């Protein structure tokens, strides 16, 4: 839209090219400044400083930048350099002010020329500074991107006991640097893209060449380029545009806040997509089991890691199935329970006016409300919620005979289990499926639950993430990949990269030399 308007306003633009005419800079500084101001729409935060150089008294030049999104220190140093330079005579014969400035006087690393007003304007919006020179057809763009941003902090959503405490920030450059600092390989590729008509959000696609599969990388690029939207505010936007299937409760793209997780994925041949403005980077292609793995699994010993992974998987099934199993067994299959337990359950439910399904729904919805309140409310009134939630809704509801104590236990346990899953989006999937299964259990008992699970399994088998089967190491079964799924074998036994995810080239498959099992007796001999 912007392009069309400027082209329309500009009388000098070619008549035959009505659209997308690049407005080129002209030798007149005043006119350039005016056009640039018009392009940016003016505003108090646009800073313009005009200078004159001693050696070129007839030519003026102007420094432009947008205050706040530039690095203050860099601007300061540059201005100081420019002023010093302007007051001193040029020692050598230089053909023009432009070349002099370009080659001798700007104290910033990254500078490059530009010829169009639009190019200059967009560079300024990104945080660059610009020098327009009288009598020159080219402007100098100086990369001074910076400004206030959050520093690297510990990630809040994915915490570990042992492992690096750095987390990604909202700043894309910081994020790519965090990855580069971990993987110092020349094969690391960082491809940049701009998506979003108005926000012009920077996106980085990061992968290891030769280890990531070429067709996957190509597909990632293709899908990102296809996006047509006015704004990208978070990586979730990208995720919904590029995932393989729209209608599924399961996440088909992983996200992480942790550089070590991102790097581990890159090293296994996955592709990482970073979006400027969010600490959550996307990882793709991804499989079902990945959502049950935490980066800490690889830092702690393998035995406890395996145990914890099994716990997480169990928790996933508990958070998905427990309420529905309770409903099914108490409503349809009481004979499965030991008699004493059955009697105590029946006694508890005696005063409860609702059927088990309604009771469970009431409690589950209550819990979901409590959870949402906990996330949204101001931190200060947190204790109020916990008192109301625990005492009023829990204890009092049981005492009032609205719900049975057993149901409160079931719902609380389900809730706690759903927090165990390391990936929040997989926990959400379990939460949603839980309600469907509860209805099935309430109407058809165990038969209903089984039907639901079969449909779920068929659904999972049909899912793909960037063409890779979602249940990858299990179906199609790849025995060599099973070593890093629900179990984690010791590092010295993980000799090969996951097959199917990374490139097929044989020399790339091995990540660890053979026979590295610690064995003091052997070394001693």
């Amino acid at each position, binding site marked *: 839209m912007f392009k069309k308007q400027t082209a329309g306003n500009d009388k000098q633009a070619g008549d035959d090219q009505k659209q997308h005419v690049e407005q080129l800079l002209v030798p007149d500084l005043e006119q350039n400044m005016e056009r640039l101001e018009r392009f940016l729409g003016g505003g108090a935060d646009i800073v313009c400083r005009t200078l004159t150089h001693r050696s070129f008294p007839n030519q003026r030049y102007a420094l432009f930048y947008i205050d706040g999104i530039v690095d203050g220190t860099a601007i300061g140093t540059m201005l100081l350099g420019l002023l010093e330079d302007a007051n001193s005579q040029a020692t050598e014969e230089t053909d023009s002010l432009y070349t002099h400035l370009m080659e001798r006087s700007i104290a910033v690393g990254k500078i490059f020329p530009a010829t169009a007003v639009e190019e200059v304007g967009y560079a300024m919006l990104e945080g660059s500074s610009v020098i327009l020179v009288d009598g020159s057809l080219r402007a100098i763009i100086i990369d001074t991107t910076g400004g206030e941003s959050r520093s690297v902090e510990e990630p809040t959503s994915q915490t570990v006991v042992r492992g690096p405490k750095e987390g990604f920030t909202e700043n894309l450059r910081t994020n790519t640097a965090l990855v580069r600092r971990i993987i110092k390989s020349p094969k690391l590729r960082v491809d940049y893209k701009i998506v979003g008509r108005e926000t012009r959000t920077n996106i980085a696609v990061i992968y290891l060449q030769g280890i990531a599969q070429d067709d996957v990388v190509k597909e990632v690029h293709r899908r990102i380029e296809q996006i047509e939207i006015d704004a990208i505010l978070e990586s979730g936007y990208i995720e919904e545009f590029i995932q393989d299937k729209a209608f599924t409760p399961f996440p088909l793209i992983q996200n992480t806040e942790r550089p070590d997780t991102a790097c581990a994925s890159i090293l296994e041949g996955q592709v990482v997509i970073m979006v400027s403005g969010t600490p959550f980077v996307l990882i793709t292609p991804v499989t079902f089991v990945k959502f049950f793995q935490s980066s800490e699994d690889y830092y702690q010993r393998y035995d406890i890691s395996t145990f914890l992974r099994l716990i997480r998987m169990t928790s996933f099934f508990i958070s998905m199935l427990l309420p529905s199993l309770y409903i099914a067994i108490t409503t349809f*299959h009481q004979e499965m329970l*030991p008699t004493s337990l059955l009697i105590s359950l029946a006694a508890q439910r005696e005063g409860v006016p609702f059927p088990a399904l309604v009771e469970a729904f009431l409690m589950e919805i209550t819990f979901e409300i409590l959870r949402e309140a906990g996330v949204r409310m101001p931190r200060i009134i947190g204790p109020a919620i916990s008192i109301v939630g625990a005492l009023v809704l829990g204890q009092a509801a049981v005492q009032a005979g609205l719900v049975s104590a057993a149901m409160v236990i079931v719902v609380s346990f389900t809730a706690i289990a759903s927090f165990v899953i390391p990936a929040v989006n997989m926990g959400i999937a379990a939460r949603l499926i839980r309600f469907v299964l509860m209805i099935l259990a309430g109407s*058809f008992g165990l*038969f209903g639950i*089984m039907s639901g699970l079969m449909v779920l*399994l*068929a659904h999972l*088998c*049909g899912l793909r993430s960037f063409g890779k089967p979602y249940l990858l190491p299990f*179906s199609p079964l790849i025995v060599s990949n099973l070593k890093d799924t629900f179990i984690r074998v010791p590092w010295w036994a993980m000799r090969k990269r996951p097959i199917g995810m990374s490139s097929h080239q044989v020399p790339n498959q091995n990540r660890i030399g053979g026979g590295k099992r610690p064995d003091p007796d052997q070394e001693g001999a």
Partner: protein
Amino acid sequence: MITPRQLASTVILFLIGSSSLFLLGGNADRDAWMSVLVGALAGLLLLSCVTLQIQRLEPDRNLIEIFKLYFGRIIGFVFGFIYVIYYSYKCIRNVREFADLSIMYLLPDTPLSMVILIICFIGGYAVLGGPGVFFRMVEVLLPILVMIYVVLFILLLSAGLIDLGRLMPMLEHGFKPVWDAAIPEIISFPFGEVVLFLMFWRYTAADEYGVVIRMTIKGYVFAGLFITLMNIITIASLGQFAGWSVVPLLQATTFVEISNLLERIDPLVSLLVFSAVYVKLTAYYLGASIAFSYLFRISLRIAAIPVGIGIYVGSFWFKSYMHQVNVGFERNLKYHFPIFQIVIPIVLLLVMLLRKKVRNKSNGASQRQR
């Protein structure tokens, strides 16, 4: 596309399918397991000499395409349609087994039509995904189900229910009852049913046809041994009683009691048994739908709808579970199924061999003329 491993998994679960519901070879009394073994061996002969040979001659075509190619368009269509009916009928039988037993063991008050509707829906959902999804599903299910079966066997063992003495004396009345019980009943159920795989083999992604043969036979042998073992366990735990109960395996598990935690695990066991039945009915549903789609040249997703409706409506034909079992064991197994599993495949194979020979001869003749 199907990997060879998925093919083997499906052969296993397909064969185990509903056979765990019945006491196979019940007429041979305590020698039933020998009948199963004999039936399995005879079925293996049939599989390797006929069914797999048909596919070997035309590795890239499914049964319908082979019919059309060798029998011409009209006769081929008729034969193809007969097989659609056969597969659908087998599917109906499994749907009915699933539904009736669900009502018997899990849902006494739910109307039959509702249960059948749900079964058709969950089968149809997998069918809509196509062979790729279904075979992947089975690959995931197989290890889970086999593991539960093993746990179940261990439970039966630890509960002291299994008494191998109940198998003695062997061959009390000679070998004849064993043979009579096996041929043709046990061939046609379950072992001859692999004729369905004529619809699936061509989807296997294998470099050479030998892999398909190997994996099919491996799966078949595993399933054969497994069914025999199950038979032995059922007889050894129930003895004479095995012949009388509706679902002997479930009957045996009602006696299991794990300390005081779970009193009766038979609802859980019935789910296990039903999952295998589900695999079988979906396989038939899928086979019928693929056949239908090839016959009428429509996409699988569309073909699954009329086939599904046919299965749903058809399942009300049986008046009761006993009627269904009776029709199956007394008439279908003896007179009807052998036609589809043995007679037509043999005829087809002979026609194929003859035409190949004729073609080779004419090729040879033309070469000689040159």
